[in-house]
């Protein structure tokens, strides 16, 4: 009897093993991944782009010096991997970062990749080269880089003004591909040449983007796909219906809102869907240079009146995150822990109590039930901006502020903000790498182009530099939390919530990982394959 059980157990085990093997499967070569694209990007040049609409289709054309592991959802210093650089090392004073470059790598046009290409790319980004990018939105990332120096054909060094460990994070972003020296920035906009797993075939504005397999890719055996085809569909309903009908293998990454996700799951129950934070915060920009928001009491009252949970419940059915400037944990690496967050005025669990405090501040400023403060709340004419703005108007009523929605076309939004032609604005801020340097310097440092509110605090700037130079992550985190807390208390740019969004793919699409703390870095797709 015992032997019968043993035999049965062995049989069961073998069946289980076999089925597991079948399920996991060996990657298969071939097939074209069909995806829809949410809009028609301005051009194909990632270095000039400032939206992931460019990164998603074109990241696979390129390589970086280093890259975040494409199969670990959370980007962190521990998930940095060599790419065109085989290895890297810091000098003892942490002011020189040296990369040993991979040999035998070829550009898609057959020319060899060398350290000169790295030098050209970063000279272009730092504005030092003869040729210029039409737009250079991330020039500030390299403000601490003195020079990039090739040491022979296959080694290159970044000389820094001061230690900046976060430089590696920025080099690993999907926004930092290495460009070839021999192709002009203008040509890179229309016909990008890279070293990556996919070669550019064509980009028809408002129609499609096509990539094909690079047979000479330096990672032997990759990519698995024969190509990727993006059909540009600007109408979200049409795009999702097409995915449900099987016209596409995958939706555009993080393009599915939480309510729409339900529709997809009901209409295509086999689809694999994941929801991840996008590291895009919805926040309020306050014009503190003119009345009435030059009064810190009114600014504080406004921040204390926010019921962040209500925003999250209404817009995301509870699936979004509340935090400070940095994306909250567990997906975010640098976000404040919950207990610290709760100590910031307006972040406590008792919204009514917070609003009572806010009312007192408003009354101190001369407003009350008989005298309301009338404000215009400006925002872009896009649903992601408009919808929270409407909720904000409703919430501000509770502290005697009567808001009026002022929707602004995209073309006029930034000039309006730059002119300070607004009182309150509802704004979205995307972070391409989950690192405090990118967020703090870009959005809160004195004189930064993206510091829309002109918040300027020299004391906090010193703290920015202190955290930026700290090489020990454990020591850097508390510094970052203190800065973040201070920014919220100063009402520099009150953060309402951090959004989440969904991505779906058909069950036969394998090897896709959606990054959980950035929407810009996970689209190489070199080992995505189709189990058909």
């Amino acid at each position, binding site marked *: 009897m015992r032997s019968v059980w043993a035999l049965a157990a062995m049989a069961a085990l073998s069946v289980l093993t076999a089925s597991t093997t079948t399920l996991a499967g060996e990657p298969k070569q071939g097939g074209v991944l069909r995806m829809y694209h949410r809009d028609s990007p301005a051009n194909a040049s990632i270095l000039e782009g400032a939206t992931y609409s460019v990164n998603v289709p074109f990241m696979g054309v390129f390589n970086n010096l280093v890259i975040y592991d494409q199969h670990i959802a959370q980007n962190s210093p521990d998930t940095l991997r060599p790419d065109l650089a085989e290895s890297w090392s810091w000098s003892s004073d942490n002011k020189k970062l040296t990369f040993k470059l991979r040999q035998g790598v070829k550009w898609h046009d057959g020319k060899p990749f060398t350290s000169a290409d790295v030098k050209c790319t970063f000279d272009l980004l730092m504005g030092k080269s003869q040729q210029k990018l039409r*737009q250079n939105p991330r020039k500030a990332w390299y403000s601490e880089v003195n020079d990039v120096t090739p040491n022979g054909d296959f080694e290159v060094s970044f000389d820094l003004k001061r230690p900046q460990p976060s430089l590696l994070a920025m080099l690993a972003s999907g926004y930092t591909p290495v460009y070839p020296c021999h192709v002009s920035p203008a040509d890179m906009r229309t016909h990008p040449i890279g070293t990556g797993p996919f070669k550019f075939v064509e980009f028809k504005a*408002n129609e499609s983007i096509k990539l094909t397999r690079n047979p000479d890719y330096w990672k032997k055996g990759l990519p698995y796909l024969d190509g990727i085809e993006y*059909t540009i569909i*600007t*109408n979200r*309903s049409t795009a999702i219906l097409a995915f449900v*009908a099987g*016209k596409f293998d995958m939706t555009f990454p993080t393009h599915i809102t939480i309510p729409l996700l339900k529709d997809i799951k009901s209409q295509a129950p086999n689809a694999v869907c994941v929801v991840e934070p996008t590291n895009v915060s919805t926040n309020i920009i306050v014009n503190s240079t003119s009345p009435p928001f030059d009064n810190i009491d009114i600014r504080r009252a406004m921040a204390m009146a926010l019921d962040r949970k209500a925003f999250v419940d209404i817009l995301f059915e509870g699936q979004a995150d509340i935090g400070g400037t940095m994306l909250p944990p567990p997906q975010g690496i640098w976000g404040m822990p919950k207990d610290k967050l709760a100590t910031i005025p307006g972040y406590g669990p008792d919204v009514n109590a917070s609003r009572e405090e806010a009312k007192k501040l408003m009354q101190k400023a001369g407003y009350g039930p008989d005298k309301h403060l009338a404000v215009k709340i400006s925002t872009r004419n896009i649903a992601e901006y408009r919808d929270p703005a409407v909720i904000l108007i409703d919430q501000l009523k509770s502290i005697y502020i009567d808001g009026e929605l002022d929707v602004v076309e995209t*073309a006029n*939004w930034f000039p309006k903000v730059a002119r300070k032609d607004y009182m309150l604005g509802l704004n979205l801020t995307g972070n391409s790498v989950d690192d405090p340097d990118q967020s703090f310097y870009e959005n809160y440092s004195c004189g930064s182009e993206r510091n829309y509110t002109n918040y300027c605090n020299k004391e906090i700037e010193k703290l920015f530099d202190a955290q930026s130079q700290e090489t020990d992550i454990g020591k850097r985190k508390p510094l970052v939390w203190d800065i973040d807390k201070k920014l919220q208390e100063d009402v520099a740019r009150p953060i309402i919530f951090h959004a989440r969004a969904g991505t779906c793919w058909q069950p036969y699409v394998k090897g896709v990982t959606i990054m959980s703390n950035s929407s810009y870095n996970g689209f190489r797709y070199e080992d995505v394959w189709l189990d058909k």
Partner: protein
Amino acid sequence: MFAYLVRRLLLMLVTLFGISVVIFFLLRIVPGNIVDILFAAAGYVDPADKANLEKELGIDQPLILQYWHWISGFLRGDFGYSYVSEKPALQEILPRIPITARLAGLALLFSASIGIPLGVISAVKQGTRLDYALRVVSLSGLSLPSFWLGLLILTASVAMFNRMPIFNPNPQTWLEAFATYAVPAAAVGFRSAALTMRITRSSMLEVLRQDYIRTARAKGASDATVNYQHALKNAILPVITVIGIEAAFLIGGLIVTETVFNIPGVARFLVEAIRWRDYPIVQNLVMLIAVVVVSANFIVDMLYAVFDPRIRYTD
């Protein structure tokens, strides 16, 4: 006649000049240009980069100079380069025209082939259940926006057949090619068919009460002969006028239909170009449309004289 022809030609040129001025300056009145949009999308502005880009695109020049560069280029057939794609504007515009032309043609065909017969039936069967049913259909057609109808068609198609009739750039069979255009054409043509049907019905009702129709019946002509040979022939003129007007209005419906069915036609392209303030595309495309419309009017005016002997243009 010759003097009239010359005068008419001159008038046409003046009209086109006026249109070109209106197009050019209207576009500049709209706030923001391509450079503003590019920097707004990037969320920052570097004044030096902005100035360089404006210089590169020539939008820093005085408006008169910009107008002259554009219009002289247009007359030479040099449409310039798209600000967005940086490809020749003509190369961007030309491949999209046949797509929209096919769609518009099919929509008009759908409108006429459905609207006219149903309008005749509705008039002939006035006051019957069939007439009421057809009137409900026509009212629905007038009430349903074409983008909504398009989405309904797509949703129903996916729910019932698990098929998605959106644009297929490389149809393998004749049927696929037809389906690519037929479904969106039906969506955009339905409203037009409803209007055609209502006009046909009212026009037919008026004609059916005429003495010569009674005479025809008295002579023993069959219902079909009376309805189609005598009545419809005389009722069709206002219908043709309406179809002609509808053809001009079709472009509005095509914009949303091309968006919903993801058709890479010229209508959607024009809207995208306006959104980007892609002046070379918008100016040249609208000007091309204006040239076609003005030339068509001119030719029609000339043809009146050819086909209707009562019309003679005198000096």
